[in-house]
C-alpha cells in the first residue's frame, strides 16, 4: 500500500499538478497576512478556514492525476479495493500536511504573527498549539471533500467541480454564526471563531468530534460511490 502512496505522490509532483494548489495557498495566505499582525490563535484559525477549499482542491487534483485505467491497474496490483482506496486518501493527506506546514511557517517569515501584548492575552505557545490543531482539523475534512469530488467518485468533471465548489461554499455558509444546520458543514468557520476568543476544553472536544464525524460521513459516501469500480 505504501508503494502506491509513493507512486501517487510522485505522479502528483512530476505532472506539475502539485504546483497550482500550492500557489493558490500561498496567494490566500499572502492576502491574509498582508493586512498586518494578529495573535497566533486568531491568525491560524482564519488560515485554517481559508485553506480548507485549497486543501480539498489539492486532494481532488492528486486523486485525479492518475489516469482511470492506471487506477484500475493499481487496484489489481495491490489486490484489494480497500488498500487502493486508503492509499489514495493517505497520499492526499500527506500532501495536505505539507501545505499545512507551509501555512504554519509562512506567517513567521512575513511577520504576520505577534505575541501577547497584555497579561490578558493568551500566551504564544497556546496560540500556536491551537493553530496546529485547527489546521489538523481541516485536513481530514478537506481530504474527504476532495475525494468525494474526485473523478473516481463522480465519474464526471462537471459533477466533480459542483461537489468541490458546493462543499467549499457550504462550509462557509453552513458554518456562519447563525447557521440553521451547522452540523452539515465541517467546523472550519466555527474553529476560526473559537480561536479568536480562546476556546475552552469542551469546545475543542466538540469541534474535533464534529470534524471527525463529518469526515467519516463524507468518506463513507466516497467509498459507497466507488463500491463497484
Amino acid at each position, binding site marked *: 500500500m505504501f508503494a502506491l502512496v509513493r507512486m501517487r505522490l*510522485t505522479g502528483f509532483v512530476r505532472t506539475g499538478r502539485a504546483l497550482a494548489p500550492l500557489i493558490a495557498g500561498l496567494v490566500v495566505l499572502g492576502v491574509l497576512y498582508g493586512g498586518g499582525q494578529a495573535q497566533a490563535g486568531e491568525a491560524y484559525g482564519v488560515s485554517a478556514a481559508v485553506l480548507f477549499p485549497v486543501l480539498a482542491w489539492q486532494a481532488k487534483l492528486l486523486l485525479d492525476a492518475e489516469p482511470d485505467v492506471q487506477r484500475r491497474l493499481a487496484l489489481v496490483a495491490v489486490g484489494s479495493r480497500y488498500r487502493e482506496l486508503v492509499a489514495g486518501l493517505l497520499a492526499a493527506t500527506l500532501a495536505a500536511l505539507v501545505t499545512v506546514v507551509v501555512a504554519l511557517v509562512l506567517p513567521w517569515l512575513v511577520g504576520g504573527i505577534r505575541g501577547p501584548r497584555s497579561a490578558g492575552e493568551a500566551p504564544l505557545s497556546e496560540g500556536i498549539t491551537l493553530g496546529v490543531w485547527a489546521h489538523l482539523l481541516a485536513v481530514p475534512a478537506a481530504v474527504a471533500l476532495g475525494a468525494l469530488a474526485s473523478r473516481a467518485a463522480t465519474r464526471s468533471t462537471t459533477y466533480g467541480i459542483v461537489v468541490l465548489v458546493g462543499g467549499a461554499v457550504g462550509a462557509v455558509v453552513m458554518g456562519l454564526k447563525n447557521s440553521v444546520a451547522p452540523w452539515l458543514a465541517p467546523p472550519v468557520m466555527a474553529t476560526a471563531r473559537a480561536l479568536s476568543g480562546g476556546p475552552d476544553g469542551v469546545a475543542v472536544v466538540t469541534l474535533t468530534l464534529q470534524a471527525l464525524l463529518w469526515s467519516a460521513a463524507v468518506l463513507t459516501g466516497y467509498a459507497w460511490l466507488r463500491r463497484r469500480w
Partner: protein
Amino acid sequence: MRLEDVWLRYGRRTPWVLRGVDVEISPGEVAVVLGRNGVGKSTLLQLAAGVLRPTRGRVRDRPRVVGWVPERFPADQPFTIRQYLTSMGRLRGLSAAASRDATGAWTERLGVVPYLDVRLPELSKGTAQKVGLAAALLRPPDLLVLDEPWEGLDAATREQVPLLIRQVRDGGGAVLVSDHRGETARLPGARQWSVADGTVSVTVPESEREGMAVVEVAVPATRAADTAAALRAAGHQVLRVRQADPSEIG
C-alpha cells in the same frame, strides 16, 4: 474461479451489459473471449480481473495474484518504463531488488530495454502495450487477463503472446484473453467464451469433446444449483440444468 449469475450495468438508467453470466475457469486453463465490438467483452474481463464488481451475482475463488492487461495502456503518466515497472513490482508486493530483477527480465524478453529510461508518453503504442504486458507478468500471475493483447504489437511480439500464455498456463495459471482479430487460432485447446446479447456461451475445444459421455442426473429442484456447483467443483462440465418431466423419472 467462477462467475455466478453475474449481472452488470454501469448505472441505474443504463441497460444491462451482462445478464446472468455463469462461467468458470480452472487453473491451467485458457479461455478466449469472443464477440462483436461493444458487446461486453472488456466488461467481462474486468469483472474477472476484479476491476469491476458485479451489480448482481458474485465472483468466487478469484486467485490471489491477477495480471490484467487493458486494451489501451494508460501512457499519460510521468514515469519512465524503468520507474513505472519497478513501482508496479513494489505494488505487487515484490522487494525493491526483486522488482528491479523482474523489470530487467521482462523488458529484455519483450525487447524494450533500449527504451527503459524513456518516459511513457513518448513511447509508441506498441511499446506502451509491451510495458502493460510486462507489468502484468512481473509476478507470475495465477490468473492472467489479456484484453486484445495483439493490438499495436509488432510481428515479433505478436508471436511472443501465445508463448507467454502457454508459460502462464504451464505454471498452473489460468488465462482469459479477448480477441477480435482471429489471433487466438494460435491457442489450440482453448475454450471459447462467446459474448452476445449480454450472455456468455462456452464452447469446449474439439480435442476435449472426444471421448466424453453425458450423464443425466435427477435431483430435487431445490438442490439443483448446489448439485451443479458441486459437479463443477469436482471438475465436471455441467451442460445445462432443466425442469424434469415427471414421466422420465422412474
